[in-house]
């Protein structure tokens, strides 16, 4: 079979990038006039028959699809990523900036009680861990972030988290100054992370 290799490349690219299956007419419309569309498609179909993806004809239109016998490979990747709730994000941020921090302290900072689910989600994500116990009455458990947290957010050290003023200076925050707030960076760091390691 001798199809023009340049025409073949074009059809290949078109079919690859197409968002919908393509019929022969739409392929012909994009290729040079002298392209032999049926021959090209036959050639491609044969060429991809034993590869990881096949060129298939569905309802008269052509489309690249993963080889059916390999679909199992993709199955358990279908897990959809869940978006972290705002409450969970806020709690995670508080833990990151104030660690080690107790549950009561988190609630104080947020001004609302912590629902059970939130901490569960953060544990489940592998981003927080118990760090030790505060040496105060009741010896409450303190929490901190994990190495996975650092890896996920691309940080070397929790101390690298930018402070409020710095974020503001770099335009990260579109907030108007309210005069209330100075800098939480220092405050957060006054809770020395080394204070009581487990």
């Amino acid at each position: 079979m001798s199809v023009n290799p340049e025409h073949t490349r074009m059809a290949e690219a078109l079919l690859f990038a197409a968002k919908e299956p393509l019929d022969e007419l739409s392929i012909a419309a994009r290729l040079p006039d002298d392209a032999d569309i049926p021959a090209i498609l036959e050639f491609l179909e044969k060429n991809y028959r034993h590869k990881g993806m096949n060129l298939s004809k569905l309802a008269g239109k052509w489309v690249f699809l993963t080889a059916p016998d390999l679909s199992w490979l993709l199955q358990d990747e279908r897990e959809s990523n869940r978006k972290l709730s705002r409450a969970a994000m806020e709690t995670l941020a508080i833990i990151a900036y104030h660690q080690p921090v107790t549950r009561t302290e988190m609630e104080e900072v947020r001004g609302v009680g912590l629902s059970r689910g939130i901490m569960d989600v953060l544990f489940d994500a592998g981003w927080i861990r118990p760090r030790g116990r505060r040496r105060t009455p009741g010896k409450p458990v303190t929490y901190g972030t994990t190495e996975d947290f650092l890896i996920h957010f691309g940080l070397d050290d929790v101390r690298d988290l930018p402070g409020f003023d710095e974020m503001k200076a770099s335009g990260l925050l579109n907030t108007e100054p309210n005069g209330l707030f100075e800098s939480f960076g220092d405050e957060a760091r006054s809770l020395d992370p080394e204070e009581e390691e487990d």
Partner: protein
Amino acid sequence: MTERTGLFDKDNKFASDVHAVPSENALVVDLDGFEGPLDILLVLARDQKVDLLKISILELSKQYLTFIEQAQKLRLEIAADYLVMAAWLAFLKSRLLLPQDEGEEGPSGQELAERLAFQLKKLEAMRGAAEKLINGTITGRDRLKRGRPEGVTVIRHSKYECSLRELLTTYAQHEERKGIRNPLRLMRSAVFSVEAAIERLENMLGKLPEWADLRAYIPKELTDPFSIRSAEASTLLASLQLVKEGRMELRQTESFGPIKVRKTIRRDEE
């Protein structure tokens, strides 16, 4: 020179490339198109058509000073940093022209000129780099991903999605909203007082003649669940108070159903 084209169109020239370069006769001076004094210097320097490290800084200084003079003649608003640069270049010019005093401190005029040339070279390099990046092979423009992937996602290390930016802004917004150094103030503003609710109901009541859900009177700007709960409770108490005073009517058709309120309609008004 304010036209901004999409930078992702191929072969797009950057704004600076089409600046009207003020030569002797060109009186068109438009500072709007420039991004600071260094930008002007670079445009002027390119006019000398030599490697930036070999340009005549003396000549460049003269050109810049002429440029600023022209702008001043035209009474254009000139930002302070342009004038500071003019003053600095005048100073550099004098250093370059006059023999250096014995015992004069700091780098010589020649050294300063070299540093300035290098600084311009740096800016030019970055400008060229930006252009090359834009005209390079852009994914999604020059190289396309598969149009309809099977819908399989990448193996991720985490089941939950949250970017660093989201994390940082959430915290900062939260902190700012709350005011960490002023917890008492926080409590005051978070709790919606009965007095405030009465005042609000009184102000709004006249504007809604028909039965309306009591929830409609809760301040819309409240977002956190605690404040909303507090406002709901206070507004209910306030409505009971107004009913007691005979200024408002209240009805609820079923248990836990919506509470409707309206202004008391006086007989003499009907």
